């Protein structure tokens, strides 16, 4: 079950992308995601694709692995494309059959949206593939630090994030274990009418929730026993540092963004 979806998974490596400062990576992805939606022209899409695919190649994660991991996402991309083709009614009619008209604008819009979705998912997946969950949380905490002045609980937010990220694999394993135990007792999740299949989720969810609550309680106790008392005055084992490679990456990114800005419209 966890073999087909790789979003949120980390693949250890030593590449240039892996070693970048996580704060920079998050900023780049953030700006990239914002910018995707202002892309209109052929050239500007090319620029974004070059950046995304280029980073994927530099990260040295096998392309087939990334593409296979995005399998569930292909479906969403294909669906948006098809919906656009049928629902957009602008521009010239290219072709018409059984009373359904195919507009040229529909094709262009559909391709546009699909390309944006693909870029969005590729870049964010690349971020999590090359950055450990711990670095991501550290970076989020560092980036949000200014909000501390507004009494925003930055440390608590980061802690919540790291705990949930930490427990995703654990819960996945737990789910796997429980579904195997129930399958051995004859639970069938893959065949039968939809109503039965939805019902079949209950024997999985209840044990999962019970164990999650137990875990949460244990974790709270363990944290208290070790004297956890929030972010005030806490030091870090790993300090984030901005190095020369990061500066280089930032300059390249800014360069690409300028090219993008010039070709945008």
């Amino acid at each position, binding site marked *: 079950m966890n*073999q087909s979806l790789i979003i949120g998974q980390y*693949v250890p490596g030593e590449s240039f992308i892996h070693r970048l400062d996580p704060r920079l990576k998050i900023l780049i992805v953030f700006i990239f995601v914002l910018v995707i939606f202002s892309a209109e022209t052929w050239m500007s899409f090319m620029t974004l694709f070059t950046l995304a695919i280029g980073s994927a190649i530099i990260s040295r*994660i*096998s392309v087939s*692995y990334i593409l296979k991991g995005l399998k569930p996402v292909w479906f969403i991309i294909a669906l948006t494309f098809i919906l656009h083709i049928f629902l957009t009614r602008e521009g010239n009619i290219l072709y018409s059959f059984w009373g359904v008209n195919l507009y040229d604008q529909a094709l262009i819009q559909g391709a546009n949206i699909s390309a944006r979705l693909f870029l969005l998912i590729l870049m964010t997946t690349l971020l999590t593939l090359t950055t450990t969950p711990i670095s991501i949380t550290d970076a989020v905490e560092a980036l949000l630090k200014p909000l501390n002045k507004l009494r925003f609980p930055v440390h608590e937010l980061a802690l919540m994030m790291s705990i949930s990220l930490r427990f995703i694999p654990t819960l996945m394993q*737990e789910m796997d*274990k*429980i579904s*195997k*135990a*129930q*399958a*051995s*007792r*004859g*639970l*069938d999740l893959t065949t039968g009418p939809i109503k039965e299949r939805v019902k079949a989720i*209950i*024997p999985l969810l*209840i*044990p999962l929730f*019970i*164990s999650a609550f137990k875990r949460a309680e244990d974790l709270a106790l363990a944290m208290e026993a070790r004297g956890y008392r929030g972010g005030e005055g806490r030091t870090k084992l790993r300090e984030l540092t901005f190095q020369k490679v990061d500066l280089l990456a930032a300059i390249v990114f800014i360069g690409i963004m300028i090219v993008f800005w010039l070709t945008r419209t």
Partner: protein
Amino acid sequence: MDITFKEVDYIYQYNTPFEHQALHNLSFHIPSGSFTAIIGHTGSGKSTLIQHLNGLIKPIQGEVTIGEFTLSSEKNHQVKDLRKHVGVVFQYPEHQLFEETVKKDILFGPKNFGFDLDRKEDELADVLNNVGLPVDVLDRSPFELSGGQMRRVAIAGVIVLEPSVLVLDEPTAGLDPLGRSQMLKLFSHLHQSRQQTTVLVTHHMEDALAYADQVIVMNQGKVEMIGEPKELFKKKERLRDIGLDIPEVFECANYIENKLGVSVNECQSNMEGISQVLVDFVKAGARS
């Protein structure tokens, strides 16, 4: 049912950067009606092995035959039928409970496999008696029970299916010594009264020695040794090498042999036998 593994390979997360081979070219045979213990270090592939027994995972290479069912890397549509015949009690089975009452939870399996529920309901008292629970727990919520009782309920939910093969993955982990020996006696009793093939995964060499007629020793995804427990535990050095102990009685017999120079033969490898040897030795010493 006979169980045969033929050159089975299994790889976790096949075709990803996380690929990890858990079973290497595994071949062995478990005769119908036998009590087989599987021992091995953590990570030696025991749990992977038993998941092949009811088709939870399929071999990537090779073939598993259980009775008339054959599992290979191809899709098999009889898996549900197979699961009806092979009951698996997983580690910490109490984690699988979910129903409102103990009764409903025990009958979850029979309902899924299309058993005659009225008949099964009549048998419930018997099943509870087998696992050592009072009948009045039937209408209580499983979550009100103690950990040991919950485990018994979960085990009842598997043996109510009367499987021809019962697979147990460390069923005694985390139980107190009394609970442990009760649990093992239960399985041994079921094994004898129902003629069912029993496969027990365990860390306790004593349990393997006391109950099993065949022991499979796993090491790093391979079968290291296979044979009768008494024969097998003589190979102390080889077991040591892969990080396993021999049962205490064997340890004790070895110690007596070395210290006193008397020999303890294999049929005396139990507490009575050893004490008999000691008694004889002391008496002989007193006479001379």
